[in-house]
């Protein structure tokens, strides 16, 4: 299937990926996209492989997406969730990891509330580890599916395009992985959010930081809204939610300032009227549901690539 050799045992963040590796993953995803359009969506590629979905933090969308991706490749997928799991009984991540390892899976997909949890697992396990979101740190498959969505729209040469990421940047693993990925793809990234929700050192990121939403959206080719966790207000980072909705929500007038044909992305789940106006989420410019479809294809591509690498090894 491939020309370039895939070097990575794990996918912990997009940081480790080269431009050609990203391109190859997205190309592979495009082929799976075709399969997903067929009436029978299942291929026997990963028959007999087992994939553990270890989600130590509540998740419906990402977990389902990985589950569907694995099943369409005919892999056996096993879920380990929060409720009823040994995590709630006080088992340490190390012991959970070793227990999972003993079940000899080919790939473990992990979602965890601690930044670095995927690294922690990858250091200790022989099987491939896929980071499905670790704390505020990284969510590489989300960034890849965002790239896939926009590449479908913009074509493979995306250099020169501009993307705005707006909202709670400080606590967002989606923002961190996206900023790194788009920099590799040559897309200019803008960042906008309340100053209390910007991470320290953001000035040194490969992105331009804006204080004003009208200026931030001006002429951009895509806008990515980020979910506002309601607990940020309780933590004293925001005055109140009404103020947030008035000052930081992306509405029609913002979209009108963007470039012609600009689109809107959101990793979901959406707080309608909070970070993104309901009308925008449902508009023709919204690519939010495309992102979901892309998510399955990108995750199929990743699981396939890792399984093939392990076979060669």
């Amino acid at each position, binding site marked *: 299937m491939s020309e370039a050799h895939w070097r990575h045992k794990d996918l912990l963040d997009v940081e480790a990926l080269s431009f050609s590796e990203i391109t190859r993953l997205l190309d592979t995803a495009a082929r799976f996209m075709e399969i997903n359009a067929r009436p029978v969506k299942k291929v026997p590629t990963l028959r007999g492989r087992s994939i553990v979905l270890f989600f130590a933090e509540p998740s419906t969308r990402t977990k389902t997406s990985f589950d569907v991706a694995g099943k369409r490749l005919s892999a056996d997928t096993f879920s380990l969730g929060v409720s009823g799991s040994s995590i709630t009984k006080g088992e*340490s*991540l190390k012991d959970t990891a070793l227990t999972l390892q003993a079940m000899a899976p080919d790939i473990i997909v992990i979602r965890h509330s601690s930044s670095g949890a995927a690294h922690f697992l990858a250091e200790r396990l022989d099987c491939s580890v896929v980071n499905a979101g670790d704390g505020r740190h990284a969510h590489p498959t989300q960034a890849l599916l965002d790239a896939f969505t926009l590449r479908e729209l913009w074509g493979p040469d995306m250099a020169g395009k501009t993307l705005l990421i707006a909202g709670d940047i400080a606590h967002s693993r989606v923002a961190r992985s996206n900023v790194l990925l788009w920099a590799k793809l040559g897309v200019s990234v803008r960042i906008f959010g309340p100053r209390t929700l910007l991470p*320290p050192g953001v000035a040194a990121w490969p992105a331009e930081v804006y204080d004003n939403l009208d200026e931030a959206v001006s002429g951009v080719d895509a806008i990515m809204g980020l979910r506002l966790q309601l607990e940020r207000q309780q933590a004293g980072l925001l005055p109140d939610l009404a103020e947030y909705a008035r000052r930081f929500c992306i509405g029609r007038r913002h979209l009108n300032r963007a470039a012609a044909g600009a689109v809107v992305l959101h990793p979901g789940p959406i707080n309608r009227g909070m970070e993104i106006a309901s009308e925008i989420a449902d508009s023709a410019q919204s690519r939010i549901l495309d992102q979901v479809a892309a998510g399955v294809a990108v995750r199929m591509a990743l699981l396939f690539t890792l399984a093939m690498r392990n076979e060669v090894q």
Partner: protein
Amino acid sequence: MQSADRHDAVFLEQVLIPSLHAPGPYNVLACEGKIAACAPAGEFEAPAGVASIPGKGLRLFPSFVDAHAHLREPGFEYKEDIESGLRAAAYGGFGAVFAMPNTSPVNDQAAVTAFMLDRARLRHPFGPRLYPVGALTVGLEGRELARMGELSEAGCAAFSNDGRWVTSTEIFRRGMEYAAQWGRLVIDHCEDEFLAKDTHMNEGAVSGRIGVAGQPTVAEALHVARDVLLSEYLDLPVHLAHISCRQSLELISFAKERGVKVTAETCPHYLCLDDTRLENYDTAAKVNPPLRGARDVQALRRAVQDGIMDIFVTDHAPHAAHEKEVPLDQAPSGCIGLETALPLTYGLVREGLLAEKAFIRMWHDAPAAIFSIPVNNFAVGDPADFFLFDPDSEWEVTRETIHSKSLNTPFLGARLKGRVLAHWLGGHRIV
């Protein structure tokens, strides 16, 4: 070595003593726990029946003082206990160790102090000597003053809320005043509770990039400023624990210029490592205050060089392996330091940043003066507390070389230069 039959005497030959005016070589004789003679080598020989210990090329340092350690007993003996902690201290070159009160129960009552001193005397009758630090407030809760009169009488050498903050400036002020009544110094762990809440490393470019909640340097500096102002207002001394950042140093420097009675300590790890050490979420490098940015490290090294920093301490903070083998945000803060402190700080001497005499002052004379404990100036009658140090001996930090029960150190596996070869306290050989 000659055959010896006198065991109450120690004779060291041809040692260098950098703390003296001329470094030597000297011959040193200790009898009955005291220095009996110390003179240029050749001026006198070993008395009959006393073995001569060759010390050519080696340093003889007065036993060092660690004014800040956590020995974990009572309550957390699985991390460390007084026996293992003092053993590690002996091998690290320390003859006096200040044990912080965040044990379980907290050392806020005489019974706990007495228990700790009993353990030390039972397990290490010849030392290292334990100096319990009493809790400044009951249960370290920061609300009511602890019974500092009772605790002083029981043997507490200083008072601190270490590991916890004192949010109420009123309580802290009264603590300084009341401790002074018993001739005791207050050691403040400078940390703003609100700025530091739920943080796991230094706030900066690294924390922003790797997505870990960071503690800003002002969380420390704010309390340093508070303490400096209180100290000046009350005309009472205060000692600032584990200083880690530039802003604190500027405030301390300002205070000293005004003659405020402020003294400060820092630890080897703040001088050797910065927050990039946490890029891979290494819990061994999670300490509190956190490892700071490179500019803070540079500022600390300059403060050591310029004499703004008064003393070194280890902030030896053992934790069991299973406690540290978790994601970064779940790991407790702290690293062990009793056995790595000397080689690490001697590195500053090697780099030419610190004169050997100043190095000894920061580990011996200065802490002894701040906390009013006996010193060894190698004058006749001084306590025979000293150790032989080979600055060129290299060793690797491993389970085999470390005597502490715990092994949580960012220097695990590192090769360090400089080693304690032998250690005497009151003339008794303890290493």
